[in-house]
C-alpha cells in the first residue's frame, strides 16, 4: 500500500482513503471501543485541546470521535497503518482540509483555548501560527531567498530589506542549511537535492515564526543521510516549537518524539510516552502494529 499523502491529489483523496481502509487487515474491529483511548491522551499544559473530533469525507467517517491534547513544546508522533487517518487528523490542526469541498470537521478543536473551526476564525492567522511541512519537498520554483522570504513578505514581518535578510539568514541557519546555500541564495530552489529542498521547506515554515510545526511524513522522500539531518533538526527545534509529526518509520518516532499516538481505522487507540509505546504497549492493536504483524 502506497503511503499516499492526502495533500497530493484534490479529488483522488477520498477514494484513496477508502481503499486504504479496506486493505488494512486488522484483528476484529470490535476490540476498539469508539471514543476511548488507552494511555495518556491528555496533557497538563495543552497547546491543542482536541475533543470528540470527527472528520467526514462525504458520507465516510475518516476520523471517529478522537480526543487528544498536544502539549506545549512537546514532540508528538502519529503512527499507524496507511489510511488510518493520521494525515487527515494532522491537517485539521491548521485547517488544510478546508480546500477539500467534501471534507467536514466536527467536534471541538482549540489552539490555546481558541476554537480553530470558529466561522469567524482567521485562517491566515491560524496558519501563520501553525506551520506545516509536507511529505514531498515542495519548494516554489523561485530562488532560495524568495522561498524563505515568501511567508515574511506575506505577513509583513519585515519593514526593511535588511530585516528580511536577517529573517532569511536565521531561518536557514536554524534549518542547518545556511552554510550550504549562503553563496547561492539567488539560485532556483528546485535545483537543490531532495534533502536540501526539504530543509528549505522547514526553513520556509520557520521564517514566519510559528508556534507549532506540523510535519506530514517529512522524511518519506529522503535518503537515510538527509533523514538523519532532518531528525537532528527536529530535535533541535523541539526546544522552541510544538511539533506534530506523522511518520511511517517507528524508529523515527522513537528517536524524535516525546509521546506517540497510535491511530487505527480512524480511531485513536493509544497515546503514551514514546518509550512506553515501543517497549510495553498497553493495547493489543498497538502491539501488533509495532511488532509488524500488520500495517
Amino acid at each position, binding site marked *: 500500500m502506497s503511503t499516499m499523502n492526502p495533500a497530493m491529489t484534490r479529488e483522488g483523496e477520498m477514494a484513496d482513503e477508502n481503499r486504504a481502509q479496506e486493505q488494512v487487515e486488522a484483528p476484529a474491529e470490535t476490540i476498539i471501543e469508539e471514543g476511548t483511548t488507552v494511555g495518556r491522551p491528555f496533557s497538563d499544559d495543552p497547546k491543542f485541546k482536541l475533543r470528540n473530533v470527527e472528520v467526514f469525507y462525504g458520507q465516510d467517517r475518516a476520523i471517529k470521535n478522537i480526543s487528544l491534547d498536544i502539549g506545549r513544546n512537546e514532540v508528538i508522533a502519529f503512527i499507524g497503518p496507511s489510511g488510518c487517518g493520521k494525515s487527515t487528523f494532522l491537517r485539521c490542526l491548521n485547517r488544510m482540509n478546508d480546500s477539500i469541498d467534501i471534507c467536514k470537521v466536527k467536534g471541538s478543536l482549540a489552539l490555546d483555548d481558541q476554537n480553530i473551526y470558529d466561522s469567524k476564525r482567521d485562517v491566515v492567522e491560524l496558519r501563520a501560527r501553525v506551520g506545516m511541512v509536507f511529505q514531498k519537498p*515542495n519548494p516554489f520554483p523561485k530562488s532560495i531567498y524568495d522561498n524563505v522570504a*515568501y511567508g515574511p513578505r*506575506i505577513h509583513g514581518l519585515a519593514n526593511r530589506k535588511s530585516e528580511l535578510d536577517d529573517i532569511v539568514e536565521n531561518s536557514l541557519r536554524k534549518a542547518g542549511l545556511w552554510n550550504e546555500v549562503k553563496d547561492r541564495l539567488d539560485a532556483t530552489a528546485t535545483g537543490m537535492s531532495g534533502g536540501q529542498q526539504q530543509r528549505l521547506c522547514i526553513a520556509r515554515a520557520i521564517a514566519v515564526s510559528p508556534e507549532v510545526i506540523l510535519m506530514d511524513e517529512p522524511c518519506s522522500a529522503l535518503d537515510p543521510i538527509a533523514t538523519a539531518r532532518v531528525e537532528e533538526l527536529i530535535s533541535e527545534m523541539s526546544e522552541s516549537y510544538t511539533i506534530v509529526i506523522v511518520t511511517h518509520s517507528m524508529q523515527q518516532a522513537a528517536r524524535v518524539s516525546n509521546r506517540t499516538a497510535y491511530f487505527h481505522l480512524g480511531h485513536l487507540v493509544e497515546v503514551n510516552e514514546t518509550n512506553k509505546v515501543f517497549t510495553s504497549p498497553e493495547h493489543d492493536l498497538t502491539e501488533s502494529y509495532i511488532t509488524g504483524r500488520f500495517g
Partner: protein
Amino acid sequence: MQPANLLLLTIVCVLVAYGVGYARSRSLAMPLGGIRHLKSLPFYYGARAALWCGLPALFVLGLWVAFQGKVIQTLVIGSLPQEMIPGNEGEASLLLSKISNVASGALPPSFVEAPIVDASERLQALREQSRFYMSALVVSVAVLAGFLGWVRIRPKVNARVQVESILKWVFFACAALAILTTLGIIFSVAFETVRFFDKIPITEFIFGSQWSPQTAMRADQVASQGAFGMIPLFTGTLLISAIAMFVAVPVGLLSAIYLSEYANKKVRGVVKPLLEMLAGIPTVVYGFFAALTVAPFISDLAASIGIEASSQSALAAGGVMGIMIIPFVSSLSDDVINAVPQTLRDGSLALGATQSETMKKVIFPAALPGIMGGILLAVSRAIGETMIVVMAAGLAANLTANPLETVTTVTVQIVTLLTGDQEFDSAKTLAAFALGAMLFLSTLLLNVVALKIVRKYREQYD
C-alpha cells in the same frame, strides 16, 4: 474499368486475401493443436496476406493514374501532322482541350479540322487501351501478390513482426502526407510571391503606406496605377488583433483562474463547457453579430458622447473577435494552471497565504510560460481571422490607430483580391499571394515562439 471501380475491386481483393489468409493460418494450426502453436495470431496472417495483396496493387494503380494523362497527351500530339504540332505550352493545352472536347462529344466533329478529329479518335482509343491495361495489370498484381502472401503463410513465419513494420511505414506515409501538403502550400505561395515581386518592387510592398490594388484590366482602360503598400493592412491587422487580445486575455485568464482555483466541481462542470461553446459558434455568426449589433451600438454610443465613429469600426470587429477567442485563452490557461502541482498550492496556503496571494505569487508565475504560449496561439488565431473583419470592419485601407475608424486586414484583402473574375497573372491577384506569404511568415514566427515557450515551461518544476 474506371480507376474508382478498380480501387473498389482492389479493396475486395484485399478483403478476400485477408479472409483466406486468416482461414489458411487457422487450418495450418489445426494439425499442430491450436492457434497457440502459430508464431502469430491468425489475424496477423490475414493482415499480412491483405497487405501483400493491396499495397503493390494500389502502388501500381497510383502510378498509372498519375502518369497516364501525360503519356497519352504526348502520344496524341506526337501523332499530329507536322504543321499542326504546337509551338508552346499555351497552344498545346488549347489544342488538347479542343481534341478532348471532340472526343467527349462536347464539340461536333464538323466544327474542327480533319487531323483533330483523327487525333480525338486516337485519344479515345488510347484511353480505352490504357484503362484495359491498367485494370489487367492492377488485378493481376493484386491476385499474384495476394497469392504469394497466401502461399507463404507458415506456422513458423512471424507475421506479427512483418505487419507491425509495414504498419509503421503506413503511419509514416500519413504523417509525411501532412508535411508534404504544407510544403506544397508554402512552395506555391512562395512561387507566386516571387512573381509578384517581379512586377512590384519588394521595398514598395513592405514599406509602402498606400494600398489600393485597383489596376487596369485592359491596356486601354483608364484606371489608377494601383498601390501595393502592405503597411496599412498590417497596422489594421495589428489594431484589430490588439483589441481582440485586450478583450480575450483578461477575460479568458481571469475566468480560467476562477474555474481552476475558486469554482467548485458543480459550477466548473457547467461553466467550462458553456465557455467552450463560444469556440463552436461559426465565425460568420460572430460576423453578423458584430456588423448588425455591436458596430451600430458602438457608433451610437460614440455619437451620444460627441465622438464621430464609423458604422464599421475596428473596435466592433476586434471586440467580437476577442469574445470568440476567450475560450482559447481560458481553456489553455485552465489546463496550465491545473497542471501546477497541488503541493505548491498547499505549501503556500500552509504558510498563511490567502487564495488570491497563492494565485498571484506562486501559481501564476509557475504557469506563466504556459499561459504565454496559449496567448500567442490565440494571437495567431486573431491575426488569421477573416470573416468577422470582412463583415464588421470594412474594406477601406486606412492607416490609422483610431479604433473607431474603418480599417481592413491582410486576410480581408486577400479575400477581396481573389474573389470575382481576375486575370491570374496581374499584380492585383499576385498581391494576394505576397500578403499570404507575409501572413504565413508572421503567424509561423508567433507559433515558433509559442512552442519554444511551451517547451521551456515543461522544464519548470519536477
